[in-house]
């Protein structure tokens, strides 16, 4: 049987790792595409209420956020301890909502203006007085599609 005896001096051949990086790059691009970077840093704390009937918010590019909550501890000196409104990356007042709605509408095409949704992302402890004021402002500027942000209730 000497004829079939293999030469045993080669050792195990190394694995070809050439395509490994391709696979990892593919994963990387996948994650880069599906994720969104946080656009603005929040100055306020938001602990949204929980609900069982929540649905997903569709079409992210047609959504503008109105954040409402108490300023974070390190911003308390600057913005106080009462609930405040944050529009994009600045603290605002109820009277600024109209201008914000106009700006957001003008940034969209005519068709998208009608579909623009304003997502109210408020802390559970915020009083309804402030939120009602915001809703009245939205009504007055005919931004009628709204969305109450909440977390899904754990069953």
């Amino acid at each position, binding site marked *: 049987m000497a004829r079939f005896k293999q030469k045993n001096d080669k050792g195990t051949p190394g694995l070809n790792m050439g395509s490994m990086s391709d696979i*990892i790059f593919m994963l990387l691009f996948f994650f880069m595409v599906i994720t969104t970077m946080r656009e603005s840093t929040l100055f306020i704390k938001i602990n949204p209420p929980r609900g069982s009937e929540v649905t997903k918010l569709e079409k992210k590019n047609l959504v503008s956020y109105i954040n409402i909550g108490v300023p974070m501890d390190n911003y308390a000196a600057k913005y106080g301890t009462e609930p405040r409104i944050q529009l994009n990356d600045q603290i605002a007042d109820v009277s600024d909502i109209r201008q914000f709605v106009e700006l957001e509408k003008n940034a969209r095409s005519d068709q998208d203006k009608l579909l623009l949704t304003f997502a109210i992302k408020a802390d559970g402890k915020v009083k*309804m007085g402030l939120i009602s004021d915001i809703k009245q402002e939205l009504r007055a500027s005919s931004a*009628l599609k709204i969305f109450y942000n909440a977390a899904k209730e754990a069953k």
Partner: protein
Amino acid sequence: MAKRATPGLNTSAMSDISFLLLAFFLMVSSINTDMGIARRLPPPLPPDFQPPEVRERNIFQVKINRNDRILFNKEVGDISLLKERAKEFFSNPLDRPDLPEKNPTQIEFIGVYPVTKGVISLQNDRGTSYDMYFRVQNELTAAINELRDELAREKFHKAYNDLDEARREAIGKAIPVAISEAEPANKGGGK
């Protein structure tokens, strides 16, 4: 000059680098799925607007005070009962005279369906917490969703969420989201 084979590039560290990038993106990015309840605000009213007369049996009043206590149909109630009461109000299965009237309407895919004339009137105080307000909205939405699901199973033998767009719209016409929000009261004296 002697011809030599070019040595292959050692690319084994390449995967390490791309792993590093991948881990970085995994950490800094958030797949933030925004969840919540969608609502439509009523359009701004003209100044000479007269509210339409609505019979008392067609209104289900839900009030939330500044201490987050709920009052429905003029009695103090618990939020856990709200869903069942709202369902009973909207469906009025026994045609009781103190529950809303129905308006038989021809609807595509369903046929003639008695659409309720009932409206839930929701009023909160300026001192009500958003948490409580949201929970009430959640219960009312749950009532409507359950009624829609029941109708979808009866007519199409499918869950409401599995229906196509046209049939979902038909169900939406048969059981509309009839929640009217009054201007908030200011009993708490909050600003």
